[in-house]
């Protein structure tokens, strides 16, 4: 799962960049900045997920 977290983070960063330059997959006038911000947040969450998996496998929300 660790590589998946990193791959997803990278994908979300790319998607965010595409949205910010106005070429996002669902870009429409006025919404691309919001989509870009959400993509960045998702990328950060994927990195947090990676961090959780790297440090310890115990203590999750189970």
């Amino acid at each position, binding site marked *: 799962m660790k590589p998946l977290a990193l791959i997803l983070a990278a994908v979300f960063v790319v998607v965010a960049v595409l949205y910010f330059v106005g070429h996002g997959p*669902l870009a429409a006038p006025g919404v691309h900045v919001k*989509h870009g911000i959400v993509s960045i947040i998702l990328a950060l969450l994927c990195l947090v997920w990676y*961090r*959780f998996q790297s*440090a*310890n496998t115990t*203590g*999750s*929300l*189970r």
Partner: protein
Amino acid sequence: MGTCITHARGLHRQRESLPRVRTDADVTFVQAMLLAVLQGVSELFPVSSLGHTVLLPALLRWNVDEGSESFLAFVVVLHLGTALALILFYRHDWIALTRAFFATIVRGRIGDDPAERTVWLLVAATIPVGILGVLLESSVKKLFASPIPVSLFLLANGFIMLLGEWLRRRQKAHEAQPYRKLPQLTAKDGVLVGFAQSLALLPGISRSGSAIVAGLLRDLHHEDAARYSFLLATPVIVAASLLEIPKLLAPDAHVVLVQAFVGGLVAAVTAYASVAFLTRWFRHNDLAPFAWYCVVAGAISFVLFATKVIA
């Protein structure tokens, strides 16, 4: 929720494609104060703020252009006021949750501290509503943000809460287990609550109502389910308001500066009083009164609009 802001913009886009039958009219001071009170109350009571924002001006036949830059700026300030009230009310929780958030990231694991589990349950529930909100909100509003669908969704909102309470009573009749506390929820429970509150993208369905019902069905007590719902509301309202702050810099925004400032304060005070009331209410009471209010208000509104008593 911040949904009102994009709802207003959706209406503006709809109107751009239609022949204009009314001239732009800025919100009057009295209307502004009424809308501020409505926002502060209906944002947190499980009765759908967005539904009321659509129905009330239509019922009162207000000649307000909800898509104008000045009105959008006004709505942004109302939401900021509501967010401020929520942050102030739960200030001790938010300090603990913020510390817990960074502590877990630095440590790389979620410990047994209730704040650490709670903050990640908030993250888990915010992801679905954040993604679905950004992707679907404007298209859903374009389809449904008119009085007749809103009346029906308000009616449905009442039935969802009644059904939730009924299922909950049935569940408890078969199980003698005590209620779970909020930190005892799992990530799956959090995501389910997140999807449930995404129903509020439909104007007339209450975000807090659907989140509380989902919490109840995951075995939370009303008090904990409501607290989870109000904590969840804060990041969503703050994010929606911050994204719309550029509206305050629009050329026409200064027209309603006084109304916006006073309205923001009124919304903050009303929201604070609402959350204080509701946290006490849910210690010993359930969703039934709010559910019946939605059923009655939805049914009456539907009859009035469908029979064109109010056009």
